[in-house]
């Protein structure tokens, strides 16, 4: 029996568990699998574009005032000030666990970092390894990739950076500097660079190609378990600022973040059960008594006083749909805010700045982040919903995925922080 069960092990779920454990609750996380942190940049995006994807945001916390007024049901509006504190909590926590995050030099500004296409992408907090990619810095960039490695293209990145007015050039190094293996993904390369000998050989090659005054951009593979030492070693041995550019999934920065958080949670006594696919629940009146996850024999019951839904929306699998246009929340079948029929789900253009209405579908909550129905009545007294499963936002289009996760996680359970 737990006090709190969090369903979902993405950033929102992990942080909601963190807050609950910190407040002294016995917490268990139950998740079908691992989450979107493994696919994204490992940064904390708060608000990149508003009101549509056409308009970049310079200072997200300032713009939040407009957003709150214009979209009073947006999770940021409901979280009302929690975002600020949630971001501070996150910075403190990541410092504690040895994976420090920081924002732009001008506090409150969005940080613009190069994407794997070389486009400036807005984020608010980035891990140490990505900071030197700050595009507001004047140093010219040397983007380094590896011959034949399919997940990173320095010449394209450099060309696009140049087109946006930044100075950049590209170099390709042999892949066997890092790994003699034929078939490698980001995680395997990062693991290889946990080895100091490999770091040394990479550093030697970089020293040969870097020019004075340049900073070096590499794909985000600079160590996994030994990331901190690998980064330090590399910078020292090369003698130039180094930054990572996260590329196609699996996201090594995201995995580092998840691992650090999970370790911290374990230290706090939080039980994390991955591979637990919730298939049912039991409520008595308006109180959820237990949820049930699939097992090899009989389903496994998980009892708790409180439940936090952090299942991630359509992306995380927390919301499903079918050909009739039906959309549903998969755990508790909570009422959803969604377009009335399939004809209204999409716009004709993939890149439409307004995004696609179906991706705004989600669970509606009140100011305590408890799910409500169409009449505004609370559905269950002991359920909260956080993160990407919430309605009235499109975290991908807005570039607010992690910001919403952090702010809403802090609001769950109405803990007196």
């Amino acid at each position: 029996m737990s006090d709190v069960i969090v369903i979902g092990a993405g950033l929102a779920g992990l942080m909601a568990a963190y807050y609950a454990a910190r407040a002294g609750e016995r917490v268990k996380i139950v998740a079908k699998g691992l989450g979107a942190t493994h696919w994204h940049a490992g940064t904390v995006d708060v608000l990149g574009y508003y009101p549509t994807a056409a308009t970049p945001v310079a200072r997200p916390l300032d713009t939040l005032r407009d957003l709150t007024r214009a979209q009073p049901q947006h999770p940021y509006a409901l979280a009302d000030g929690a975002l600020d504190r949630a971001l501070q909590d996150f910075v403190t926590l990541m410092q504690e666990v040895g994976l420090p995050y920081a924002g732009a030099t001008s506090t409150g500004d969005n940080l613009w970092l190069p994407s794997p296409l070389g486009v400036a992408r807005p984020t608010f907090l980035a891990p140490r390894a990505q900071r030197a990619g700050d595009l507001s810095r004047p140093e010219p960039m040397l983007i380094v990739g590896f011959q034949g490695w399919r997940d990173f293209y320095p010449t394209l990145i450099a060309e696009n950076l140049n087109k946006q007015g930044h100075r950049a050039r590209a170099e390709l190094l042999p892949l066997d500097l890092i790994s003699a293996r034929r078939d490698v993904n980001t995680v395997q390369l990062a693991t290889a660079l946990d080895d100091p000998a490999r770091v040394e050989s990479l550093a030697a090659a970089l020293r040969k190609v870097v020019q004075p005054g340049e900073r070096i951009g590499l794909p985000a593979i600079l160590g996994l378990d030994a990331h901190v030492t690998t980064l330090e070693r590399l910078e020292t041995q090369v003698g130039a600022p180094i930054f990572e550019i996260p590329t196609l999934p699996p996201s090594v920065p995201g995995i580092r973040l998840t691992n650090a958080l999970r370790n911290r949670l374990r230290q706090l006594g939080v039980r994390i059960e991955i591979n637990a696919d919730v298939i049912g629940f039991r409520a008595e009146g308006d109180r959820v008594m237990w949820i049930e996850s699939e097992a090899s024999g009989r389903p496994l019951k998980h009892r708790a006083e409180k439940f936090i839904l952090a299942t991630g929306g359509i992306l995380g699998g927390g919301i499903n749909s079918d050909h009739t246009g039906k959309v549903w929340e998969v755990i508790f079948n909570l009422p959803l805010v969604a377009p009335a029929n399939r004809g209204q789900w999409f716009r004709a253009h993939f890149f439409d700045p307004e995004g696609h209405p179906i991706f705004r579908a989600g669970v509606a909550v009140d100011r305590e982040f408890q799910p409500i129905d169409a009449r505004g009545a609370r559905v269950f007294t002991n359920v909260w919903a956080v993160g990407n499963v919430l309605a009235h936002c499109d975290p991908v289009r807005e570039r607010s995925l992690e910001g919403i996760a952090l702010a809403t996680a802090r609001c769950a359970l109405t803990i007196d922080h």
Partner: protein
Amino acid sequence: MKRIETDILVIGGGATGTGVAWDAALRGFRVVLVEKRDLTHGTTGRYHGLLHSGGRYVVKDPHSAAECIAENRILRKTHAHCIEDTGGFFVVTPEDDNDYPDRFHAACQRLGIPCEEISVAEALKREPLLNPRARRVFVVPDAAADSFQATHSTAQAARHAGARILTYHEVVQLIAEGSDGARRVVGARVRDVARGEDVEIRAAMTINAAGAWAGQIARTIGVRVDVIPGKGTMIAVNHRIINTVLNRCKMPADGDIIVPIHTVSVLGTTDVHVQDPEHLTIEPWEVELLLREGEQLIPGVRRARFVRAWAGVRPLYQEHYSGATRDVTRDFTLLDHHTRDGVAGFLTIIGGKWTTFRLMAQVTMDKACEYLGTCKPCLTATTPVPGAEHGHYWLGHRLREVEEHHLQNELVCECELVTRTMLENAARNNPTLTLDDLRRDVRLGMGPCQGGFCTYRAVGILHELKDEGRKTNDEGETWEVATMQSPAHNQRSAISGQRSPLAISPFTNSNLLLRDFLQERWKGLLPILWGQQLKQERLDELIYLALMNADHLPDKDARSPMSDFYARPGVVTTADHRPSVGIEEARDE
């Protein structure tokens, strides 16, 4: 203006056009083929991939059926590598029980189409997902055909025999000389779309094989050819839930066929009379119909994961016709404009089916020979095209080759097992203005993730290739197009150092390639986007927007000849579904 002299000018780069070029070249003519976009841009690239046994038409259109079985046998030899010997079933479902099955069986016998009845139990053993309530099942020699590979191989065969194939060359105007009643077509003025220049092509005989656009071509000199465009919509299940072509045993109707082709299963099709062959929209009722009818053959299919929807236009033709498109003859027509319209040097070949393309080409060139005063025999029926020597396609071949030759690290499109070398070779040898051109060559982006991972990789790889040299090449002699889909063969040609000049247009911008392809993929997803595929698309959105910020790429105003085509909506977005229980009224915007 650049000028080309030739014997035969073929307009249209689909199955028929390339077939005519092949036939003509084998007969020793000089041939130039022009296609306004990429090969198979038209109907040939948008059908379900059926090599007809003729069973479908035995009752309704026996002449057409007889042609089908004859050509079926020929194509299995000449284009062996493009064909997967799946076999076909004609299934009598509980909805279909009447006297049709016996008439069908008898007609098959009469026309010499092998047709063997098997027990439903046996059918279920071979196809476990088949409707267990089926009443009768007949086996026929249907097969699955890869029309991309086939057209490319036919074009290659034509090239080997001296033909010139010019893609991205759009006919602006036929050139006719003489006065009313005694005119003669002497060629065409054509626009090289990539370079933006006009080319004049002079030919003794011009053959209009432009399919759904045949009317537009003829109209440039005031000749009337009323093509009846019959749009057909198809949707593809993410994987092979069947391995035999499944037909409903009844008069041809909408949604009565499921074709296993490459890694997907295609449900087809509808038949809607449209005006514009270029911009087709898919309507929700069509998808609903295909799902509903599909359930008759494979119960449960409506809950499958669909990965793609597309529409093609049948270029149907029937002199003086005014009924429903479903009932227009599937037979083909050769229009001899000299006798019909007083315009010599001009033939139009229209109608028919993919299965009969070779015969259509033969009939056309026989007529052309009459006019040109030479009587060379047709050789296509007995001349295998390059690649046929590899034998029939089988589903596992790409995986087998990747496994045997340890090419896993080479994979660019992991879903469809496309290697880097395959991509580079195709890009070097086929004029590539869009990633969609490469998709047709090697199946890039055609799997479950619909370009989620491979779009980035392909763009990056092509970008690196561009630095090698900005030459265009429309000959492509040094590369075996017959093996464009083979990971192992491509690896060998890369290893042996065969590098041909780059065929990519110098005007292709990498950012444009990426944006266009993502939009192109999106267009074909909207009609079937729900469930797992919707989740997939959200991941693809996360990658390209949140991670890559691709919607803010430089060169926003760059355009390719296909950008507008991709941008036109391919679906009717007005509501057409009843909302079901559990959905809140949209209180959002």
